[in-house]
């Protein structure tokens, strides 16, 4: 078919960052292809990238600014679109600026909670956090990475001083040994999983899967350790114990690149494989075998997802993995490393560009005085050196009245937060909720003002994928109706707030292009300094750190040193703090994703993808189903202490006995009404993977 035009851009879905070509006819995306010679996907796509970008043209796209009809009329009740009226940009922007400046004058900057967006561009997010920090003087800036990889970040920061994935996707097909743990890679990072399977099938790589669920990729594994949910630390500690007992470690690496080995190695005493078998349910011989395969490899990598991080022990889980990599020296060479697979197209970039409460762009601490002075001089204003609140802490603060205003860029907390009934209660207490989005989502029901924004196909900018590769997106269409490009509308809002606050000098919100925004950020962030939009145009993508224009970028990290100097062995204890199944709530509920949907479902539910997977399915083990008298296809009620949902059962041995799995994508089966807001003490990530539930027939 002859298309009117073909636009090369970056896929808006998961963190793989596939390069796609949108085939456009009559101003519509008809299909998508992929260039054969472009990293990271080299022509490969999954169903979402190839067929699922049609949400761009969905009839329910927001096209005009919306203002709540009964604004300020007491308690905030959720309302649908009918509760809003269309407004002009001037009216909506002025109203938002009035309300924001009123709050600021009355209560100060820390009355705001602001949410960056892991789906928006680096440039959108830079402007947004700059608005929060320079105009509103608050570091209450966070985003949904808090709910996904914050524990990986916290654990890797402690162990190595850097939290990004240490290997590039291009290295995957040449792997020798690798562990996939807590990641349903085939469904959540489909194109990466093709390279991992290629390593096994074509390269003879050995794959060890460590996961309570029997996910598709276990078909390619030499070993599947199916441990009880929540016992990850015990399992990795037992592997470390074997590696030390059998002297399989890399003593040169330990001597030159790590610290705390002596104390750490003595701390493993109780973690014998035999004892850990009783904790995890994994046969001790399998634990030993896994340890030997991993340790004896010349190079070995670990890939993980939410199963490791979305846990009340998420930081410990991550450090237990980092420990075995440090023991064996499986870091700093091609095909080795520690790789948290990022979930959203730009979740890496959203963190990189300052969408975090403790960091300016480039992970520069807000509490560091020299850094503060650097940003103050660029932004021409005084800044707040107090680290802000995390996503869920902002929700708590809304509940307790400390925060009165939420400003949300493209996120949907009322789908993605745990214990939604409590989260909604917190939202209802807010005095002012401003949202920027492309669709009217579940959180928008609580908004006062909603600004219509641009999809990935309607703006220029950059996304940073899971392996730190900064890549361009291209504008293929104009925004629908009167929707505006995110960074343009944010800087318009910022200017109006600045003028109401009588700021003598603007912090700088008069950018004329996304590439200008990148340039300002790169000036402030040393590892970005060698990257510019024009360079990306020529090279297709650059892996940061890239400190100068002659630097080639960094596909794998830690070749000579770790950002914290030496890698740190962390002493860990076995903590089993998750909600445990009981007589009344005998099942463990695990939540996650499926191939055809993405996160809160805002995009995929408005795509052709919804036709192949239109409703949530609760996966239950065949033996458990038979014992408890449940049938495949039966609709049941699943309840926890916090709420209950209705869902269809799917009997499958993907779920182990005692565990049911429900995906997080469906507003009709809001699984987060069941989940438990029990948080990791360091990362503040909730325990999404473990909630005690009961199943009852309807």
């Amino acid at each position, binding site marked *: *078919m002859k298309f009117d035009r073909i636009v090369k851009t970056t896929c808006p879905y998961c963190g793989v960052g596939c390069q796609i070509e949108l085939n456009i*006819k009559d101003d519509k995306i*008809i*299909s998508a*292809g*992929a260039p*054969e010679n472009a990293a990271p996907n*080299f*022509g*490969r*796509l*999954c*169903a979402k990238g*190839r*067929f699922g970008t049609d949400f761009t043209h969905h009839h329910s796209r927001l096209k005009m600014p919306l203002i709540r009809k009964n604004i300020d009329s007491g308690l905030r009740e959720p309302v649908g679109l009918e509760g809003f009226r269309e407004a002009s940009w001037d009216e909506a922007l002025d109203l938002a600026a009035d309300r924001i400046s009123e709050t600021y004058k009355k209560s100060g900057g820390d009355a705001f909670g602001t949410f960056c967006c892991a789906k928006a561009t680096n440039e959108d997010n830079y402007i947004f956090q700059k608005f929060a920090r320079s105009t509103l003087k608050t570091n209450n800036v966070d985003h949904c990475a808090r709910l996904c990889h914050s524990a990986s970040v916290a654990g890797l920061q402690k162990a190595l001083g850097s939290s990004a994935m240490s290997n590039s996707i291009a290295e995957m097909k040449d792997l020798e040994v690798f562990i996939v743990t807590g990641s349903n890679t*085939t469904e959540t990072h*489909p194109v990466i999983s*093709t390279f991992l*399977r*290629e390593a096994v*099938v*074509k390269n003879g790589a050995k794959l060890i899967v460590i996961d309570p669920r029997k996910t598709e990729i276990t078909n*390619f594994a030499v070993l599947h350790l199916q441990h009880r949910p929540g016992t990850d630390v015990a399992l990795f500690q037992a592997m470390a114990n074997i590696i030390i007992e059998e002297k399989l470690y890399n003593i040169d690496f330990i001597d030159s690149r790590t610290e705390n080995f002596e104390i750490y190695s003595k701390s493993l005493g109780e973690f014998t494989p035999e004892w850990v078998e009783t904790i995890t349910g994994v046969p001790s011989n399998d634990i030993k075998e896994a340890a030997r395969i991993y340790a004896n490899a010349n190079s070995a990598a670990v890939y993980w997802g939410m199963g490791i991080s979305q846990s009340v022990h998420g930081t410990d889980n991550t450090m237990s993995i980092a420990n075995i990599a440090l023991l064996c020296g499986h870091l700093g060479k091609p095909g080795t490393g520690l790789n948290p697979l990022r979930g959203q197209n730009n979740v890496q970039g959203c963190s990189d560009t300052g969408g975090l409460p403790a960091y300016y762009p480039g992970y520069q601490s807000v509490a560091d005085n020299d850094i503060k002075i650097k940003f103050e001089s660029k932004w021409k204003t005084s800044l707040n050196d107090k680290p802000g609140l995390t996503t869920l802490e902002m929700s708590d603060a809304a509940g307790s009245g400390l925060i009165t205003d939420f400003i949300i860029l493209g996120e949907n907390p009322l789908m993605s937060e745990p214990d939604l009934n409590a989260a909604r209660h917190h939202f209802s207490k807010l005095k002012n909720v401003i949202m920027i989005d492309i669709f009217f989502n579940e959180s928008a029901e609580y908004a006062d003002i909603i600004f219509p924004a641009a999809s990935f196909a309607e703006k220029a900018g950059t996304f940073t994928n899971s392996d730190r590769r900064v890549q361009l997106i291209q504008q293929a269409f104009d925004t629908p109706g009167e929707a505006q490009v995110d960074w343009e509308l944010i800087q318009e809002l910022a200017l109006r707030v600045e003028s109401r606050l009588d700021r003598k000098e603007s912090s700088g919100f008069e950018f004329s292009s996304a590439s200008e925004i990148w340039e300002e950020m790169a000036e402030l962030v040393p590892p970005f300094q060698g990257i510019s939009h024009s360079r990306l145009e020529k090279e297709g993508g650059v892996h940061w750190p890239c400190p100068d224009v002659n630097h080639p970028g960094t596909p794998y990290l830690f070749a000579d040193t770790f950002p914290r100097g030496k890698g740190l062995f962390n002493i860990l204890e076995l903590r089993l703090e998750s909600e445990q199944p009981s007589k009344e709530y005998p099942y463990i509920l695990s939540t996650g994703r499926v*191939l*055809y949907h993405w996160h809160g479902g805002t995009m995929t539910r408005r795509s*052709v*993808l919804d*036709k*192949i997977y239109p409703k949530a399915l609760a996966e239950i083990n065949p033996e458990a189903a038979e014992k408890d008298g449940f049938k495949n296809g039966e609709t049941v009620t699943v309840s926890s202490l916090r709420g209950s949902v209705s869902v269809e059962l799917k009997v499958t041995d993907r779920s182990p006995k005692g565990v049911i799995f429900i995906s997080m994508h469906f507003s009709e089966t809001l699984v987060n009404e069941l989940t438990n807001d029990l948080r990791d003490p360091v990362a503040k990530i909730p325990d999404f993977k473990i909630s005690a539930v009961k199943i009852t027939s309807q």
Partner: protein
Amino acid sequence: MVTVYLNDIKKEIEENKTILDAALEAGIHIPTICFHEKLTPPGLCRQCVVEVEGARVLLPSCITKVTDGMKIKTDSERVIRARRTILEMLSGSTDLSESPELAVQIEKYGADSNRFKDTAERKYPVIDDNPFYMRDYSKCILCERCVQVCSSDVQFSYALTTTGRGYTNKISTFYDKKLPETSCVFCGNCVAVCPTGALISSNEYNIKAEGAE
């Protein structure tokens, strides 16, 4: 390195390369149909055949390794006749209306698309069993790119396979199941490599159908 003679031009090339590699390096065009640069060459269509001195039959250049002193003719009369006949046989059995690359070759080799029109055309109903793409096997020339992509060349999903023999040979799923009941994950990587439009996104198919009405 070995030395080969391509249409009498001397060419040095690494061992283990194919005749097609040598021709590409030397800037000599050899037409292909089933060959795809990212996939294992199946050597099925025989459109890339060349005449090698001393060989009894024409050899498929995509899978024949070079040997030292090899003398190769890439466009001898015998080669051209073979290519023309292959195109004429494909035209007789298959709907090539959505195969722009083949149309170019038919033109170039002066193939008579109607030469084998009296033979039985391979006709199958269009399969529309999923929301993403259609399978119109009347347009399929059995190059098997889709099977390779789906199995051990790219996707490792193993949803597609070949079935039947000879005239009834066709691409299918195991037990001829509908795609949603197979291990297919609708990556569409098969659609991307199909050279004849037998696999086509449903959007494109429907737009064409509307245009045809």
